[in-house]
Structure formats: C-alpha cells, structure tokens
C-alpha cells in the first residue's frame, strides 16, 4: 500500500533542521518483524532500513549475521519480504539493505520493480562498489529507487567526491573501519569521515556502523544530518524484547538526538 519517497522526504526534513534517525530491522527474523518496523516508526524513525538476509554478509558482525541466519532458517526470501511489506502502509520511507547477489539473482529489473511495488524507494547494496554500480544504478533509478552509496574512512577525497555526487536519497557515512556491531566507544574516525564528506556537495549525510547508544547517537547527530543504528536494535530483537522493547530503544535514541 506504500510508503513516502526517500529523496523528497529527507530533503525536506533536513532543510527544517530535523536530524534523521534510521533504524535497521532484519526482515523475517521472527513473526513480529513487521510489528517491529511499525514500532520503530511510531517511536520516531524517519526511515527504516529493511535488511534482506544473505548467506555471506561480509560487512556484518556477529549480531546481524545471527539475525540473518535465523531469518534464512525460517525460509525468508526477498520475495516473501516484499510481498509482506506490500500489504502494509508505512508513514516513513523504506530503504532495503542487502548484498548484491540477492538482487542479481532475481534480476535487476524484477527486483527493482517488486521492491518499488512494496513501497521501497532506497537501496543500500554495500558490496556494489562505484566501479560495479552502473547496471543496477540505471535500473534502480528508472524504477524510482534511490541507490544509497557509502563513504568510508579509507575513501580518498577523489572517490569521496564521486560517491557524494552519485549517491541518492542520502549518503551513508561509515563511522569506523570495521563491520557492523555494537561498540562501547566511537573513534575520531567519525569526525574525520564527516569532515571529508562535507567538503563536497551530497545528499543528506547519515552515519552508521557501530553507533550503539543514545550518547553515541547524539555525538553523531551533532555533526551529521542523520544517524543509522543497526546491531544495537537487532540485538534487542534477537533477545526477545519484541516491538515494545525496540520502540522504547528507538525513543531513547530519538530523545538523545533531539535534546
């Protein structure tokens, strides 16, 4: 039944100085995952990253790996997730996050078409580097899906400039050199990567990887346009906290960011 479009929604919120909050939910991890999506939206999420599980997630740490394994064991497929999303109405944009083989296997056109039908208007495909992007980028944009690209602490200024220019919807700033996962502290790679990105024109800059607590979310919010939180939320879901626990955690992030 649909969800708002990513680019216009984020542009308008950013122009009103609203800091974006984007939680990550692994699709299909249990029966209540769609309720978790609704709960985090009610708690103040500005978009939701919908994780489609892949057998070999090389940029994910133990928490999201485990969520992926659970989801796959329950028989989750890209199409089963998209069909489920299509039945609901969402008040904020949905961004799919998966690995390229899941998309390539279904076929660019078919994946983009079915995702759009399900209300998805953004896609993060971390293993699709700038050099490999062309085919998918064209099809995604034609279908109305924004390809969201990553800038890392290791990206050179030249690459950063190119990535900033090609990313749509938002730019994903990688807060540290490492895989997804909760961290007790953040390094000053965070400030450095945001400063590097800010040197170039780009869509709103949202930062994730390792952002785990309300305090850390606040530190990101002070310098970036948005905050992405994955493993810290996924762990609560894996621990059985359910939609209520997920909502409460996202509220605490929202409050810290807006304080």
């Amino acid at each position: 039944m649909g969800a708002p479009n990513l680019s216009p929604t984020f542009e308008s919120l950013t122009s009103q100085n609203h800091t974006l909050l984007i939680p990550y939910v692994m699709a299909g991890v249990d029966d209540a995952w769609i309720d978790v999506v609704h709960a985090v939206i009610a708690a103040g999420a500005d978009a939701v990253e919908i994780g489609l599980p892949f057998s070999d997630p090389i940029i994910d740490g133990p928490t999201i790996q485990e969520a992926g394994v659970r989801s796959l064991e329950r028989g989750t497929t890209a199409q089963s997730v998209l069909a489920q999303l299509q039945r609901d109405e969402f008040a904020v944009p949905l961004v799919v996050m998966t690995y390229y083989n899941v998309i390539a296997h279904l076929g660019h056109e078919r994946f983009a078409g079915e995702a759009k039908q399900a209300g998805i208007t953004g896609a993060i495909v971390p293993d699709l580097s700038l050099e490999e992007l062309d085919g998918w980028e064209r099809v995604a944009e034609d279908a109305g899906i924004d390809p969201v690209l990553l800038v890392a602490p290791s990206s050179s200024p030249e690459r950063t400039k190119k990535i900033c220019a090609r990313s749509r919807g938002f730019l994903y700033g990688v807060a540290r050199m490492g895989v997804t996962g909760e961290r007790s502290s953040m390094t000053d790679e965070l400030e450095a990567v945001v400063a590097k990105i800010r040197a170039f024109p780009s869509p709103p800059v949202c930062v994730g990887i390792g952002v785990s607590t309300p305090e850390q979310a606040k530190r990101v919010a002070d310098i970036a346009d948005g905050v992405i939180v994955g493993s810290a939320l996924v762990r609560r879901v894996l621990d059985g906290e359910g939609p209520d626990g997920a909502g409460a955690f996202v509220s605490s992030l929202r409050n810290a960011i807006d304080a």
Partner: protein
Amino acid sequence: MSNIMGTPGLDGRFGSFGGRFVPEPLVPACQELEAAFADAWSDESFIAEYRRILREYGGRPTPLTKCGRLSEELGIELYLKREDLAHTGSHKINNVIGQALLTKRMGKRRMIAETGAGQHGVASATAAALLGLECVVFMGEVDTKRQELNVFRMELLGAEVRPVTSGSRTLKDAVNEAMRTWVSEVADTHYCLGSVMGPHPFPWMVREFQRIIGEEASSQIHDFGIDEPDFVVACVGGGSNAAGLFSGFVDSDAVLVGVEAAGGAAISSGTPGVLHGMRSQLIQDDEGQITEAHSISAGLDYPGIGPEHAHLAEIGRARYEQAGDDEVVDALQRLASREGIIPALETAHAVAWVIREAGGEIPLGSKVVLNLSGRGDKDVAQVRAILRGDS
C-alpha cells in the same frame, strides 16, 4: 600469442567474470594492492628475489616425473608436475612467497589468511616466519577438527589460528571472516588470499605467482622429447594450481581439464553470481543464497571457482569435469601403490579423472601432464579411517 590468461580487462574482468565487488572500506586497499603488484611484477629486482627464494628455500624447480607402471596400465603417457616436492608440500608456497614479499614492500607488518585443508594456512605461516611477519589464519571450526595436525603445524610456525564458528564453519566462512577482519586492520595488514579468487587484483595476482608451475612444466616436457602434451589436467578448488599449470599451455593445442569435487562443482552445477568480491560460477539456491560444498577434501569444499576459470569454461578453452569421493580414494591408493607417491586428496581428484577416462575421453597413447598439486601426508589418517570403515 593469444591474450587468454594475460592481463585482465578493466576493473579485473575475465570476459563477464571477475570484477571487484567489495564494500567501500576495502576498495582503496584493493586499489593499493593492484598498484603495488603491478609495480612489483614489472620490477626485475622483485622478480629476482621471488625466484631466488623459491629456488634456494622453496625447492624449485620441482621435477616433472614420468609415471612408468601407471602409464602402462592406463595405456597413456602420464607426467606428474611434482608440486608435492615444493616446501610445505604443495603449490601454495609459490603464492605465499610472492604475497609475503609484497606485504613487506607495501610496508605492512602482518598477514591474515584463510585456509580449508590447512595447506594455504601452513604455507602462509611459513612465509611469514621466513620474512618476519605476523600471521593470523582463519579456519572453519569443522576444518580445524578435520585437519588438527595442520593447526598445530601453523602454531609451531608462530601463527595464530582462529577457528571460525559462523555459517557452515568451513572454507567459505573462513574467507568471510578474513575479509571482515581485513576491513578493520587494513592499515597494517595484508590479506594473503590462497587461490585465484576474490576481488581484483587477487585472481590475476595469484595466477601470476603460480604461473611458474606452467612455465617449468612446458619446458620440462621437452626433456622427454615431447613438443606439447595432449592433455593438461589439474584439480580445482578455487583454481590456483590449475591456473598456474594452464598458463604454461594455454597457447598450445593441449586440452586443458580442471577437475572439481562432485559435491562442489561450481562450473558444472553452478550458476553465475557474486561472492567474496567476484562474479563467477557459484553453487547457490533459487534465492541466490550460497550453499555449502561437500567433498572428501577440505581444500575443494568451496562453493565458487576463480573467475578466470569461469571465463575459460565460457569461451571453451578449458573443460571442467568432476570426480566423486569413492573414485578419489581409489585413485589415491592406486598412485601410491603403483608410483610410490601419495597425493593429497585434492590432487587425487585429478588422478581419478585421468584413471577413469584413460581410453575414453583420453585416447590411448595420449600424453598427459597432471599437476600433482600436493602430497597426501596430511590426509593419511582420514584415508585410513575411510578404508577401515570408521567414517
């Protein structure tokens, strides 16, 4: 000369295969490695040092051995390229000496590696010890149990072995874990990948470091009065020993044959997809989820294959065949009892295909060069258990 098995195309393409499908944090590291390798491989002093170590330390050149009894039984002329006689007992040493030298040249102090059977892990630990580098080896937990002695060997050599408990706990998961670790430690760490797979430049670089096998074999065959062989055969996991041997014969009329484990045959039973930074043939389900490979040999339990092999298959320059577990054990016994050479279980796949097809696909009287990629010492306990019916 054709450009087959030459320098790959833009962004590391072999036809439609290859490429560099890695998350942005790793792209600069791959670019740095590509530049460093291209520079080193055109630097005569680097090549001289690589060759010196392989000669004085690694046991190269390895001999080409003509099989007497087995040739007669099979009705063909069978020649073995004896990588089992290289230091650490397999062809893996050629690659790790190259990559360890490159690690130092890039100013990095540490290597990480994945291993299945343990051969690449042992070779990496060896090269690290030789050149004074730290070494961490990722090995699926299942494989650490299958190859306990190799774990101890790596530790003796000063390496740290980290059992991998994610996914299927075998080689593909060890690659995942090594890549994850590389992301966070890339500043001072080189990922010493063990086969002709992964993101550009690895498939190209590892093939170049293994090219020495084919270079030696194509010249040594002349010593037997043979201009060029009719068949060139190697087992294929990721495909490095095969790529090394094939590169010496790709411009000849020889039929190139790669033999995969029947339970992990990426070319015969796989479909195109993207895994571990490359587009290649993969064993995957209807949803694009990668499935586990199963065979008697840990070193061939990989659900993919190097992208250049997918390309060679696509253009018809090489053929890819399969061997099953039972015939592999028979082949190992037959080579041991007829020629006094116990091959690795991986290698025995190539031997099994030649035994099966002599007088069939391989016409009687054919001259066959087979890459004896490794020795079977690591496998004798497992083979004993199988023959006694314990497993």
